[in-house]
Every structure is written in C-alpha cells, then in structure tokens.
C-alpha cells in the first residue's frame, strides 16, 4: 500500500452520506507500533476499521509532508505511531520525530488545519491493547469533528 494512493482509492467508493466513517491513516513504526497493530489483530481486540496502516521503518522516517499529503488525498485523521522515547530501534529516531512533529502540528494549527486531526502516539510492540484503544479514541474524536474538508483535493 503506498502512501499516496491508499486513502484516495476508498474515498472514491464512499460517498459522504450519513453512513460516513472517518478515514484514518496511521504511519506505524515497523519495530513497535506496526507489531502492536499486529498484536491487536491477532489478539482479536476490536477497534474500528477506520484505520489504514502505512508501515515505516521508524517514526523518524515520517516527514511532516506525509501528513499533509494524507489530508490532501482524503484522510480525516492522521496518526504517527512510534516507539516510546528511549526505545527507538535506531536509538534516537523518535526523539527527532518528536521535535519535528511538535513544530509541524503547531504549524498546521497556525495554517488553520485542525490539529486534533493529527495525532502522535508511542505504542510498543507489546501494546496491542493500547493500539486498539488509540484507534478507538481517535475514531471517536475524528467522528466528532466530522469529515476533513480543508486542504483536501476535490474528488
């Protein structure tokens, strides 16, 4: 699944009616959150099917522009999920990511894009329940915000 095409393909198929469901793109670190998502699945934990996971080697790999691109192509919420500070597979990638996203989220907010649509969470490989919980929470929060209409391409 590529960053560019995943959300948009589905957007075309789902008209925004009363059956509207938020679309959440989650960039998950291969070494932790991706495994956490896996664990949530194999543990049969229930969480909304609103999330599309994009596997990345590290939260430090996620350039803030990935977030805008997801919003452009129809995401209602974007999650970056990485290892807890101190636990990075590459030792420091998530620390850089933290600085970057602290700034990027404030810049998004400054530009008028709802910062509540953009989440960063630390989820380890063993935290399947936390992954499910974050997705549940985020789905609820994004559902309350409604569809993203800002910085989004016309269909």
């Amino acid at each position: 699944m590529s960053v560019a095409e995943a959300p948009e393909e589905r957007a075309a198929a789902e008209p925004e009616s009363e059956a509207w469901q938020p679309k959440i793109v989650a960039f998950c670190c291969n070494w932790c959150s991706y495994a956490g998502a896996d664990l949530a699945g194999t543990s049969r934990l229930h969480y909304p099917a609103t999330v599309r996971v994009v596997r990345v080697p590290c939260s430090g790999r996620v350039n803030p522009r990935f977030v805008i691109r997801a919003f452009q192509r129809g995401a209602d919420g974007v999650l970056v999920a990485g290892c807890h500070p101190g636990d990075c597979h590459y030792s420091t990638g998530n620390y850089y990511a933290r600085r970057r996203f602290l700034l990027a989220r404030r810049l998004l907010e400054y530009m008028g894009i709802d910062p509540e649509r953009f989440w960063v969470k630390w989820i380890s490989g063993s935290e399947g329940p936390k992954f499910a919980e974050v997705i549940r929470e985020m789905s609820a929060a994004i559902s309350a915000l409604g569809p993203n209409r800002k910085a989004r391409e016309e269909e």
Partner: protein
Amino acid sequence: MEADDGTRGAPTMLQYSGTSLEPLVQAALRVMGDGTRVFAPEAGREVRAFAPCEPGKVPAAGYWATLTNTDISPKGYLLPQTEDVMRWRGGTGNLAIEEPEAGPPAVLLGIRPCDAAAFELLDEVLIGGPFVDQTYRRRRERTVLITMACTKPGPACACDAFGLSPGHRSGDVVVYPSGGRLLVLANSPKGEEILGALQAEGGPGGAVPADPGWAGEVVAAACSTPTPLGERILVQGLLDNPQGIAGALFASKAWDRLAPRCLSCGACTYVCPTCYCFAVNDEPRGQSGRRVRTWDSCQFKDFLTMAGGHNPRPGKLERVRQRFLHKLNYHPQRYGKFLCVGCGRCVLACPVGLHIGEVAEALAAEIAPLPAPVPPAAGAAAGAAGAAGEGSDA
C-alpha cells in the same frame, strides 16, 4: 462621422453623461447571456489583481482614475495558470479520454489598453498558425474586454515605447472618460453588438451617438498621455531589421553583466501579460486522472532539461537572454512586433531590478553602428543614465 456601410466602416461611438459603467456592463451581460461573470481591478491591497465584481456594484469610471494598473496581469482569465487539458479514466488498459467543458462567459471590466493589446499578441500566437489552441479560443470568444483608457500610468509604465499609448484602442469596447461624460467606442464585432444593446436601452440619460469632433479630441488626448519611462526605454530601433541584428544581440557581452543577478524565479514571466509559456503534466489518481496545463517560465532552471539531462540553456545568461530576446527580437522576427506592451509589471516584480529598459539600452548599444534610433530628448536622458550605469562597467 461618416455613415456606416454596415460591415467594415468606422466603429460605433456613443457618449453618455455621467461616469457610471453600470449600463455598459448590463449591455455586455445581455449580449453574453446568463451566468456571465464580471471581473475588474481590485483596490485596497498592496499587490492588486483582478477580482470578481458584482453587477449592480460596478464602480464608476472615476474609480480607475485613482489607480495604477494591477500588479498581476489579467492574463490568467484567458490563459489560466492551471487548467485541465483532459481527464481520463480506465488507465492504459481501458483508456477513455474526455475534454473538459468551457467555463462561463466573462467580462473583464476596466482592463487597460496595454493588457487588452497583450491579448491581441496572445491571439496571434495561440490562435494563429497552423494549429489553434481551441481552449484559449473558446475562452477568448466568451470573454468581453471592456477597456478603460489609462489616465494613471504607473511609474514603470512605458507602453508608448512599444508602439502603444495610454489611449490605445484595444479590446472589444473602449471607454474614454472626459469630464463628466464617457465616450464609448466599439472595437470589435462583439463590441458593436454590445454598443447596439446599450443604445437600444435608450431612455433619458441613455447613450447617444457621440459627436465625432469631440470624440476625436478625447481619443487624441488619451493617446498623448505621457508615461514615465516611455522616453527612456529605447526599443524601436530593434524592430527595423530584427533578422539582421539577431546575431549581434545574441552575442552581446552585455548579458555577462546583466544576467548574474537574476534569481531564476518566474516572477517576471508570471506577472507578464504577454508571456504565454506553459507546461503540460499529468496528475494521476489511480486509474483516472487529469492532464493539466500550467504556466511555466523560461527562467526556471529545468525549463528545457531533456530526458537525458541535456539542457541547451543551462545558465542564467542563456535564460535571461532567452526571455529578453524572445520579447525584443525573436517575436519581432516572427510576428513583426514586440512581445511586450510596456506595462512595467516585470520591472516592479523583479526582486533584483533586472529592468527591460536597462536591457534595451545595452542592446541598443550593440546595434549602434546601424542607424541609431535615438530621439534627441530621450537620448540625453539615456546618456545620463548610461554614464552612471554602463560606461565604466564593461
């Protein structure tokens, strides 16, 4: 004014009292039909463009008397910065191609003679020749240019250096304000139709045929309005024998001096009413997508970079030379005219003051051995500037 022979005689000239442009706009809307949108120069911004203008709230002619021309040219209303060439579905497996529909008709109200003349230059390129840019042509036919004679040239204006004038007759309808009256002149079949509709309205205070003597005076006065740089920018000599001087202009050493400060941005080309270069690119989304044409600029580094990496204009020198010679020599070779109307926008937009007047001055020096086209008055001014600017800086 002689009786019109009905086909190609003198244009209809009307006058009406007051300076409201509302009746004229209403006449244009009646001719162009439902859904026609009106755009006019905006006020109250540091950098001004054209903006939507609501019929019923059309400014009076006096409004323009207070404004210089817009900083951003109205070019985009006929050659939009972004427009769909086509949309496709089905990918390479099951390809279907669709051409977009033409947009609604438009009125450009209060366009300056220079900008209307710029569209005439674009017409020659985009509609003329063996191929017709149908998208441009369609939009052109659905757009009315209501030109306002220019009463306030901006400080970088030099239309008269390029064979035009603030009163130049261009566009579909030309409006000349004079005292408390307006002279309204048809300048195209579309303009005739609009003035017909205006005249048909009749009523008290309505438009009546203009007194030819008065009209002649008004137009002459408008055409002789001076521009700040008209006398200082010396380009007319470049039109005499563009083919013959091409080599000398291309080889000029002046480019070495002029080009290095260029930032290779596209500001000059994007504010220019006559720059028409465009790019065509695909924007795929899965198996569907759209092919868009967008403005492009010869000043961009990769404008001409080919698939293998070869770039015939790799440096600023080549690119700056291309822009100015296109305007001052290549276009004249092809069309017998400059590709410049002297609106001065590039001068104001260039962040590093690369001035077409400065370039023209340097080029004039290249062809000095030929009969030098320097009028005495302008020559003195240029000489002074030359002493300060050029002499010691070879």
